[in-house]
């Protein structure tokens, strides 16, 4: 099943990964080949079969509503690529 260059660009856009034209061509070929191998799945009869989202049959795993200390501001920002006045800084985000 072929994954076209346009589809690769669309997927890369959703994943916010910049691609060069060479990247697009390479990934298009590789992803198409990989996905081809998945074709056999379509033939498997899964009528009435529930999907598995979790390997263990757990449910209702919750915690009590208690407060624990937060990190100091300096720690939160310790790895910040750019910061200002206690905030993380990024280029303008247009609403």
């Amino acid at each position, binding site marked *: 099943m072929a994954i076209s260059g346009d589809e690769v660009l669309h997927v890369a856009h959703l994943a916010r990964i910049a691609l060069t034209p060479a990247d697009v061509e390479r990934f298009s070929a590789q992803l198409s080949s990989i996905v081809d191998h998945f074709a056999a799945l379509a033939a*498997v009869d899964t009528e009435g079969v529930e999907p598995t989202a979790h390997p263990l049959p757990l449910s209702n795993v919750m915690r009590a509503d208690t407060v624990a200390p937060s990190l100091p501001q300096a720690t939160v920002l310790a790895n910040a690529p750019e910061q200002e006045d206690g905030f993380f800084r990024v280029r303008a985000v247009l609403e």
Partner: protein
Amino acid sequence: MVGKANMDEFAMGSSTEHSAFGPTHNPWDTSLVPGGSSGGSAAAVSAGECLLALGSDTGGSIRQPAALCGNVGFDPTYGRVSRFGIIAFGSSLDQVGPLARDVEDAATLLDCIAGHDPRDSTSNPEPMPDLRHYLHRDISGLRIGIPTEYTQGMEPAVRDSFENAIGIFAALGCTIDRGLSLPSSEHALAVYYIIAPSEASANLARYDGVKYGFSDRTGATMWDNMEQTRARGFGEEVKRRIMLGTYALSAGYYDAFYLKAQKVRTLINAEFEEAFKKCDIILTPTTPGPAFPLGAKLNDPYAMYLNDIYTLPASVAGLPAISVPSGLTPEGLPIGLQLIGNFNDEGRIIQTAHAFERANGMANELPEV
């Protein structure tokens, strides 16, 4: 703690060649890969640099390098070891486990790290029994099942070693059933390579250069920055899997891929459940072949994925599985034997693996580095 080991980036790989730090070499033959993604850990153990190492296993990333490096590698039942603290890759598949030179050491390390963690909501609330109680025990009467689907595609040396191992179990008094069939396991590779990348595509979305980590700020806009950060910050295999996962989850493809994979996963699990009514341990080779040359499979991603065909089904099912050394190829390269157990049955796996190890006499064999 002795140090940090090399691995495939974000645990995505079967050869430890996808590392920003360069590849790790197999101590048994340094022109070969050690396996992956926990190749650094496996190599360190078999090179004698340390006694014990931790690895992560999502599709076989502890077991496969253990086999290629002649170690014991144990992937516990999903939920045995807390995932809080490990960088998430395939959330419904990831587990942490030990790599060691022998079964006793692996059992000892797993005893230390297993246990419920309230910070991990998928953590198994049932405590694991002390695994060292299962060492030095008799296994006569144990029912061993060998699935017919898993014995395709083995290289001759692996087949010979596998048959030899079966003989050892028979001599130890086990019953061997070679007629076990797990037909859906053939789809485990497709199921895994849809589910794991899908979950990974979301787990790796946080690396956007805003809060931490590598950040490319050369572009003029915020989106430029984010897209370049991720393009330059991630290696080739990682980007490939993120895109594969994004594709499998995207509108129009979700039903055919992700949802379908989760349904086939249910079938795979159900077959294992049935199988474990008839046998106690499922036996397979760990890998189709021994360690391969560095660079040999880098240009064919799918060929790389095929390394994991025997380890993937247990991962998909969340079952515990161990790889123990079973022999050497004529060229002197390690071959691994995989024992798969039922949910939470680590005890029986250790019991069986230890008995085999004692009978086989390959414990603690190290290469001359």
